[in-house]
């Protein structure tokens, strides 16, 4: 199954290059994954990692903002970027002949952005619009509120976008300082997949990224303290949107694969327990799912549900009862089915150049190596009932985090919910 042509080399400055050749496609994905994100921000510059990602498109020494987008779109390509808590990615999709152009633009925006003041002033307002949009989207903002409640007062608990007031204060000097400090070659991965040639990408990257000096180690972000708690906001909404969660696992935790199996069978899709119990059997919700978010040193596991205010008093007790029951009644066939779903999703993701490129970039940042499919499969196969029962007990031993918005009058108190989670 895994006939992949993966190659890894290191540039003189320490930046790693990984490619995954797919000679049968006509296109390519190429990008730079930087091991720095919102968690690396100092206290007073919330939102800078994300603003920087925006400003990277606003002009370099030799390209105007317009040139950057025009050059890539003129050949039918796309250029985009995203910022998360632990990484920032800049990537392009192009037809195979235009990989050198994409690489040239990527290196230019990463190394030679000018961060012109007038561009910065405009881009601040664009980010303020983005913050406004998130706030108008209940099933987005609820996850920010959840994270804030799980890690109160900590950088890991802040929204990646920052806040309106923090973003309004960010300056050009802040951008330059953050780039110098965190965009270091040893924590940057150049990843490419599709119809690409490793040697020519390496040779070109050696030239284009030469100016990036081999760097000192950037400091690790402060270790998080999962705290848990309760946050409710009355909002004029049709549904109550609620996330109930617990401390989860880090990428390196021995339970990492167990939690991905558990999250799949518990709330991962139409055949999951939550979907069956809360939606199919009782008709209480349209959307309900569980999720697991990992960081390099911690993680969260949670359940999202949206329902009519009149249903919320019924939904949470069912979710709590299912959690408590899952600490002792997981069945072998559920595990087999969850495993099959995860494996199939992994295999199916291999057909797209962009998801291969993304996976390899992230795996190199997190694990320092591409993780072979066979290894993931064997780790998944090793997950059994007893591991899952122990895992659920572990999740439930942390203090629950509850975030809810909407007409929340029918919602039980945090104490009542905690009581229901005690077996």
């Amino acid at each position: 199954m895994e006939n992949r042509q993966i190659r890894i080399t290191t540039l003189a400055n320490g930046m790693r290059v990984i490619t995954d050749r797919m000679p049968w496609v006509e296109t390519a994905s190429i990008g730079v994954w930087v091991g720095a994100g919102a968690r690396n921000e100092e206290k007073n510059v919330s939102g800078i990692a994300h603003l920087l990602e925006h400003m990277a498109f606003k002009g370099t020494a030799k390209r105007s903002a317009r040139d950057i987008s025009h050059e890539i779109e003129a050949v039918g390509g796309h250029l985009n970027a995203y910022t998360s808590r632990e990484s920032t990615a800049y990537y392009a999709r192009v037809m195979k002949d235009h990989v050198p152009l994409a690489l040239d633009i990527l290196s230019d925006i990463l190394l030679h952005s000018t961060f012109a003041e007038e561009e910065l002033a405009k881009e601040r307002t664009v980010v303020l619009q983005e913050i406004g949009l998130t706030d108008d989207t209940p099933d987005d903002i609820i996850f920010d509120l959840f994270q804030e409640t799980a890690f109160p007062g900590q950088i890991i608990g802040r929204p990646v976008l920052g806040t309106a007031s923090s973003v309004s204060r960010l300056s050009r000097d802040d951008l330059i300082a953050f780039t110098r400090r965190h965009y270091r070659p040893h924590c940057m991965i150049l990843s490419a997949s599709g119809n690409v040639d490793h040697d020519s990408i390496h040779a070109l990257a050696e030239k284009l990224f030469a100016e990036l000096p081999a760097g000192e180690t950037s400091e690790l972000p402060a270790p998080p303290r999962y705290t848990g708690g309760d946050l409710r906001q009355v909002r004029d909404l049709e549904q109550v949107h609620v996330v109930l969660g617990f401390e989860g696992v880090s990428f390196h935790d021995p339970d990492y694969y167990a939690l991905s199996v558990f999250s799949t069978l518990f709330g991962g899709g139409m055949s999951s327990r939550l979907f069956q119990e809360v939606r199919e059997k009782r008709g209480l919700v349209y959307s309900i799912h569980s999720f697991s978010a990992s960081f390099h040193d911690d993680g969260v596991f949670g359940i999202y549900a949206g329902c009519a205010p009149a249903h919320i008093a019924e939904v949470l007790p069912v979710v709590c009862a299912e959690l408590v029951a899952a600490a002792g009644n997981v069945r072998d066939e559920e595990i087999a089915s969850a495993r099959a779903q995860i494996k199939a999703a992994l295999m199916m993701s291999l057909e797209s150049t962009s998801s291969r490129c993304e996976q390899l970039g992230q795996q190199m940042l997190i694990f320092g190596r591409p993780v072979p499919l066979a290894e993931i499969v064997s780790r998944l196969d090793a997950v059994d009932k007893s591991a899952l029962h122990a895992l659920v007990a572990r999740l439930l031993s942390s203090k629950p985090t509850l975030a809810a918005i909407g007409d929340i009058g029918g919602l039980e108190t945090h104490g009542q919910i905690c009581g229901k989670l005690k077996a």
Partner: protein
Amino acid sequence: MTADTDYVLKKLPNGLTIIASPRPGSHKVSLGIWVGCGSRHEDERVNGISHFIEHMLFKGTKNYSRAEILGNTRGKGGHINAATSLAHTYYYATVFPQDFAKAFDIISDMVMFPAFDAKELETERKVVLEEIRRSEDKQDRILSRQLMQAAYPGQPFSRRVLGDVGVIETVTRDDMFAYHGKHYTAGNMVVAVVGDVTPEEVEALVSARMGGMPDVPATDFQPAVYAGGDARLSRKQSQLAIDFCFPGPLKDDDDLPAAVVLSHILGGGMTSRLFENVREKHGLVYGIHASCWATEDTGLFSIEAATGPGNAEKMMPIICRELLRATRDITAEEVAETIASVKMGLLESLEKASGRCDAIGRQALRHGIPKSHDEILAKYGKVTPEDVKRVAKKIFSGKPTLAALGPLEGLPSYDDILEMMQGREPAPKPKLPAPQPRPFLPDHLL
């Protein structure tokens, strides 16, 4: 299969279309059944029944229970889902090749022999009502409904795909059987399969299973009649969202490719004119997009944006100026860029089996024969800057529809926007406090 297509198309005597695109060695199969019915085929009394039926087909059929439907697809690592739109209902799955025959048996059983179990129906009613509530918390859903109500007032397009709350609360099992019998007919369906299976296997399987369906002609629908107008709704939220539309070309109109090129030039990416002006130059929005929507009887050219409170006063004139400029000034370079982007999109869509399955099935339902990529590219290749300007002139001289949701202050009146689309700056609004009364003077002296 011919040299320039990647599929085999076959029509059974009862009218059912089968379309198969083999991908040997891909280790999986995507399959879908398209049914030519959606909310536009519903009369008001049963608004939402197409979508409700889509939900009910997962609740059990003559030969499969709810658990068996999921167990044989998701349980094996595959995927199964469905979607309902204004004009279609689509059931689709992706599975491993060894599970294909079973998955097809299940999906075909769903569309042919639904059980509409009375008890399941009562539970699912509540779920659909939750889905409606959820959509009412989504700004883009409310806005597009406002838009459709102003563009096609009183017509099926103005109604929600999810349905009317009153209908969902009361619709019966008998209604479902009647609607299903009328629309889930062989001539109104396309079976599309893309993946690690030969067209011969597909044809044999599908004709054995569905070849016996009765040959009933597809039901007609009332053609939509565009009205247009203003639909603004004040709501307390961070952003004002707008959807600004004009009547556009129909799906078979020769002008459609030029209109698509126009939409790309105006609002199709990071280089688009609206993105550059409204976002990059003025920082007024996070996103702004233009798009074309075309059916056999109507079409819309639409611009969507969201901006902070008060900004619309500045944004709307910029948008209108850009629309008018497109009627005079389009460069060959911009047209060429758009065609490169269309080509890239086509190549990308070929790479993903489920995307390809979706595309050829939908096209077979709408056009009879899906167009080959060469055909599509040839059509776009012929578009000139003159065509784009001519089509822009035609579109932007139409009567606009403006839907707006959020804090409305600063949003120009509909009449002012009509003025702007005539290239005139609207009369300045009196500022508060009201201006001092001036002595009357005849117009020509002012």
